[in-house]
């Protein structure tokens, strides 16, 4: 799983792919499994300013709701419209087709971020 090891994670079960100053965010397979089948996704608007730790997206399953936080300060530059039309992509392909949104990071925000690596994340989930 070398690809997963290239991602960063948060203890809130989000994954982050860092590409320069653009961060792509989704929820982990562990979180998707625990939520159950996703039936609705609420995505932010492109251009929307987001604040680290604030809710920017919601992922709803038949049974419950997952809130997705901005992992850094920044601006939404792209959202994955495919998951709005096909929320099950989050269950079927959480690390790939089920990505949620990407953020352009404000200056220095990345340096202040406290992401964890796959090993630390796996320790949290017990996987």
């Amino acid at each position, binding site marked *: 799983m070398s690809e997963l090891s290239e991602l960063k994670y948060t203890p809130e*079960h989000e994954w982050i792919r860092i590409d320069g100053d653009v961060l792509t965010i989704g929820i982990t397979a562990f*979180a998707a499994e*625990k939520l*159950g089948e996703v039936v*609705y996704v609420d995505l932010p608007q492109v251009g929307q300013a987001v604040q680290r730790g604030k809710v920017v997206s919601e992922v709803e399953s*038949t*049974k419950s*709701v*997952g*809130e997705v936080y901005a992992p850094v300060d920044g601006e939404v530059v792209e959202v994955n419209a495919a998951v709005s039309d096909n929320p099950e992509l989050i269950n079927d392909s959480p690390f790939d087709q089920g990505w949620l949104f990407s953020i352009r990071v404000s200056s220095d925000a990345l340096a202040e971020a406290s992401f964890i690596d796959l090993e630390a994340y796996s320790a949290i989930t017990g996987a």
Partner: protein
Amino acid sequence: MDTAVNAPVDSTQPHGRLSPLDDVHRAGGASFTDFAGWQMPVRYSSELEEHHAVRTAAGLFDLSHMAEILVKGPGAGAALDYALCGVFSTLAVGQARYSLLLTTDGGIIDDVIVYRTHEHRFGVVANAGNRAQAAGALSVRTAGFDATVVDESDALALIAVQGPMSQAIMAKLPDLHLPTPVADLRYYWSTTGAWRGEEIMVARTGYTGEDGFELYILAEHGASLWSALLAAGEEFGLVPAGLACRDTLRLEAGMPLYGHELSLDTLPQQVGLGRIVKLAQKGEFVGRGAVAHGPSSDAPVLVGLTSDGRRAGRAGYPVLAAEGGEPVGVVTSGALSPTLGFPIALALVSPSRAEPGTELVIDVRGKPMPAVVTSLPFYKRPTTD
């Protein structure tokens, strides 16, 4: 990400009690959830597929966490008449009845199904989380009667076959010997027979809004019965199903769930269950005075709510007036209905807002979602001609 099911997301999985069918669930690839202190299957593959299977074919549920409390003796019927809000002493052997265990204040300790299995023996099935309260209350309340209360929960496995194909599946279950064919078993009746020589009780009851059967057998035979049912049901589309789809199924059927719609703070009349309290047909019973007095005129009442879109109101979300936006109630259960395709919810609202057709608003995490009061159930199974 944070979720409303934070406990299951927690890495420190609670080590709950295990079903006698635990091994077959794990072998079958189930995901588990902690439910009332039990580790029970939440889904096998897909809760939506399991949901649809129960509506169109059949699903197999392990309900071994439910509490089975035996009340036996010549005074058992009279004891239950006093302990619960229904009439049981006049039930025919084999007949079943849904009822409530009330406090003296009329609050609901639990909802139960009572089966008269023999002339002097009744089985009371209570919710897993209320086992101790139900067994305790029954023991105390029957003390003055010629009846004995035995909590048999640990000894029994309970398996439910639910869905339009359930009768066909039961008829194909090998080695089942009942006094009458399952086709002749009426809704809310049960019969006792043998499966592979072991005593089994088969009841035509359920909690999904579909036709179905619930099977009680000694715990050590549960796993083999489960496997035999799966094999018998394969040709009919039977799938193993978990608690996740059970919740959406019961919600579509408008059935209350303890801890959501039913609680110590709700009187039966508030949640549409006034009809099961038999004030006229029986004498003294626990809660009689409070229920006869009834809830106050402004006490909230249970309604169904439907909305457009894909976003669901959830338990605990405020319900607001459509005009003015003042709080008028709270959602007790809600989901995007897999069968209907739109959001449904049960809510306790002010009686002045309970008329079907009343427009309300559900506060979905700060965003207003229009909702309309709707008659229950949301889903009713098609009648067969």
